């Protein structure tokens, strides 16, 4: 679609054509789906009224699986086939995984990526996550009795490109159109800020099951500006379970042997952890190798065993504040997100650091999904969603490899997106005609300590003496966080570029194959759905074109006008086709045919709006 309604930015041409857009919190321990209904974001419950879906998948055999509460219930009896905390494996290699020994299921290496060994074969974390996402998608479709147009899925702010891509792959596999990934603390801030009509600077401390995030945001009249983010993508409530389990075993001089023992002791630790939120002393009971372990645990012992973990979160908070160039006293409030923030030692540590009690008036389990739903509603172009604008940042620095395996940073972390930044490089050898560009992500100085994102070559540089070539490398990050990198030799004009899709996810072919084999998409469904979507898009395109012509038709010559009229009629005719591809092609032709007109109107529109603002504000 190429034509615009400048008068009403952010709105769909027809306010009655609402699209179902959902926000999904894909969590380490549990997941939720939410949507905006009648202007209010709410979590969608399952048929038993439960909003939470435990992020657990149990494979019974090659065909059958249990997802959510049923899988959790079976965890102790079938630990090897019950996959929990799969989020920690997303976009990771076997070597990256902490607590491998303590996991109750087996991991294998598959071409550098980790997979889970199950009775149904080796499953990638992407496939396991797709089961959870598909369950939530079905829930939303049942609730609205309509297809889901798209989803905003939340990820920890600190997720790198590999982990984000794996999340997108899982969504695609689950038949979901990803409108955007946004970070969990940002989503929480959106839900919290819009709910309270707050203004000022807030810190969001988000301790989930497997990840810790800290974000500093400024809220002004519906604009959410992320100032700094930080955290640890491998630190969460699960680690508190592990730490407690280890401490109890050490004190009782016992050991957990085998998957069943480990699962039992972790379940016991988690139960004890949750009970210690309200009680000072609780029993710790686990069946180990036939004989029962039964001891008491005090909150003080729990605090001791986990002090180092809590300290790590506070160190990250300090770093984020320093990045934001703010002091603890500059903040309006501290929002706690994530089930793990119910632990008293967390609340105490946060209160002690900031010198004030944290805000906890929204349900920490639901707030992330609610914020994602609000953003999804806006990105679906639904009417009434235009009072929100999120100015997000990139979470990790981006750069390229230079001589000696060092990283030259091009885009520093916490840069507001969209952004384009460039730096000039040169050749280091006489007569060098090619340059290898290696794109990396991370804060460390050595390439080997950062994530490798992509490699490409700039060829055809005219032979010159070393240092004479001027090669400008430009990084562009769009509003979705998608990175493209271009290199251009300024003298000769030779250039090369790449859009970064990290190799940590799946290839498009793999996804296509999986989709064909998969649960979520009977062939016919897909076709029917595609046709409906194609016709909706065609209608939107026609309406947008018509309203553009009504307003600015006089910008066109008679000949230009008649070309557009012909294309519009062709699209109206194509709409009666039962082939989605025919409708899509006609829509695309009209979009292309009106692109120059659209660009002209758009540039004028923005320039006019910006100038208008200037006069108003003077």
């Amino acid at each position: 679609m190429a034509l615009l309604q400048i008068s009403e930015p952010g709105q769909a041409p027809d306010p009655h054509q609402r699209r179902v857009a959902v926000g999904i919190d894909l969590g380490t321990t549990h997941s939720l789906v939410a949507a905006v209904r009648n202007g209010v974001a709410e979590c969608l419950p399952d048929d038993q009224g439960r909003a939470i879906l435990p992020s657990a998948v149990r494979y019974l055999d090659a065909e059958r699986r249990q997802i959510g509460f049923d899988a959790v219930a079976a965890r102790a009896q079938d630990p090897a086939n019950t996959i929990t905390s799969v989020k920690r494996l997303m976009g990771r290699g076997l070597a990256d995984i902490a607590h491998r020994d303590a996991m109750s299921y087996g991991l294998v290496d598959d071409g550098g990526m980790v997979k889970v060994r199950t009775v149904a074969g080796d499953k990638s974390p992407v496939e396991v996550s797709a089961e959870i996402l598909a369950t939530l998608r079905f829930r939303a479709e049942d609730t609205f009795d309509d297809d889901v147009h798209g989803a905003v899925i939340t990820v920890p702010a600190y997720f790198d490109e590999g982990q984000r891509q794996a999340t997108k792959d899982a969504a695609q596999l689950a038949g979901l159109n990803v409108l955007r990934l946004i970070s969990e603390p940002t989503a929480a801030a959106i839900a919290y800020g819009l709910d309270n009509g707050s203004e000022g600077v807030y810190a969001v401390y988000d301790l989930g099951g497997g990840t810790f995030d800290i974000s500093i945001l400024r809220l002004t009249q519906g604009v959410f500006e992320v100032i700094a983010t930080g955290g640890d993508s491998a630190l969460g409530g699960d680690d508190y379970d592990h730490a407690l389990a280890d401490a109890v075993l050490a004190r009782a001089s016992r050991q957990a042997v085998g998957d069943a023992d480990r699962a039992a002791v972790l379940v016991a630790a988690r139960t004890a952890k949750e009970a210690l939120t309200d009680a000072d002393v609780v029993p710790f009971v686990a069946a180990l190798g036939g004989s029962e372990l039964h001891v008491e645990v005090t909150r003080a012992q729990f605090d001791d065993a986990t002090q180092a973990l809590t300290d790590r979160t506070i160190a990250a908070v300090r770093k984020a504040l320093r990045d934001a160039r703010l002091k603890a006293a500059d903040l309006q409030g501290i929002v706690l997100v994530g089930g793990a923030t119910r632990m008293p030692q967390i609340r105490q540590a946060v209160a002690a650091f900031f010198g004030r009690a944290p805000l906890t008036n929204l349900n920490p389990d639901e707030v992330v999904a609610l914020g994602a739903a609000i953003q999804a509603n806006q990105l679906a172009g639904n009417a009434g969603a235009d009072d929100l604008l999120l100015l997000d940042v990139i979470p990790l620095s981006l750069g390229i490899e230079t001589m000696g395996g060092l990283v030259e940073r091009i885009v520093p972390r916490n840069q507001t997106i969209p952004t384009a930044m460039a730096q000039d490089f040169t050749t280091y050898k006489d007569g060098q005609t090619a340059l290898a560009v290696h794109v990396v992500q991370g804060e460390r100085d050595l390439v080997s300590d950062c994530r490798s994102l992509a490699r490409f070559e700039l060829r055809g540089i005219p032979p010159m003496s070393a240092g004479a070539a001027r090669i400008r490398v430009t990084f562009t990050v769009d509003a979705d966080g998608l990175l493209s990198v271009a290199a251009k030799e300024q003298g000769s004009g030779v250039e090369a570029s790449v859009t970064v899709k990290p190799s940590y996810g799946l290839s498009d072919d793999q996804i296509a194959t999986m989709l064909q084999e998969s649960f979520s998409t009977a062939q016919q469904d897909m076709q029917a759905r595609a046709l409906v979507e194609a016709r909706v898009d065609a209608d939107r395109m026609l309406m947008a074109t018509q309203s553009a012509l009504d307003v600015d038709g006089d910008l066109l010559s008679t000949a230009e006008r008649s070309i557009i009229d012909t294309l519009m009629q062709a699209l109206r005719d194509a709409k009666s086709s039962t082939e989605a591809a025919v409708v899509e092609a006609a829509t695309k032709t009209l979009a292309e045919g009106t692109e120059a007109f659209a660009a002209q109107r758009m540039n004028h529109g923005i320039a006019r709006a910006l100038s208008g603002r200037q006069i108003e504000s003077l």
Partner: protein
Amino acid sequence: MNLQDTDFELFGVPSTFLQDRAALDARWKELQREAHPDRFISQGAAAQRIAMQWSVRINEAYQRLKEPVRRASYLCELNGAPIHAEDNTAMPGDFLMQQMEWRESLDDASEAGAIDALQAEVDAARARALSSLDWLIDEKADYQAASQQVRALMFIERFAQDVEAKADALGQ
């Protein structure tokens, strides 16, 4: 208004070194409200591309305007005295002496107190250099002298980053 306007024109502020940070922040958000790609989400690829160009341009201008050193550098460049930081590193001897002393103090610093003291010293030096820029640019319009002062500030900022990195490493 177009993409080639100077940062000052785009933000509708006078092209002076002295700026009201709060006004810049507010103006940035106003501009993004009009031009951010998310405002044109249902309007197709051409709209997204153009909105992105504007949005990138606005962010670029904001980054340059809000940081005093970058703003001064930009003003020098606009007024015919570009900084050329990479091939112009000649600095006065006493300035370089002080830099070396700082480096030694940083290498020797092993606890938070020493880092904090060094940080305070660097902050003070930065504040002095900035106020002289204010005078050189807005009062005297001496862009050559301002350009030299910007280069000095770049040294100071780089050192300040190293102090921060060390503070990080010490885990404070």
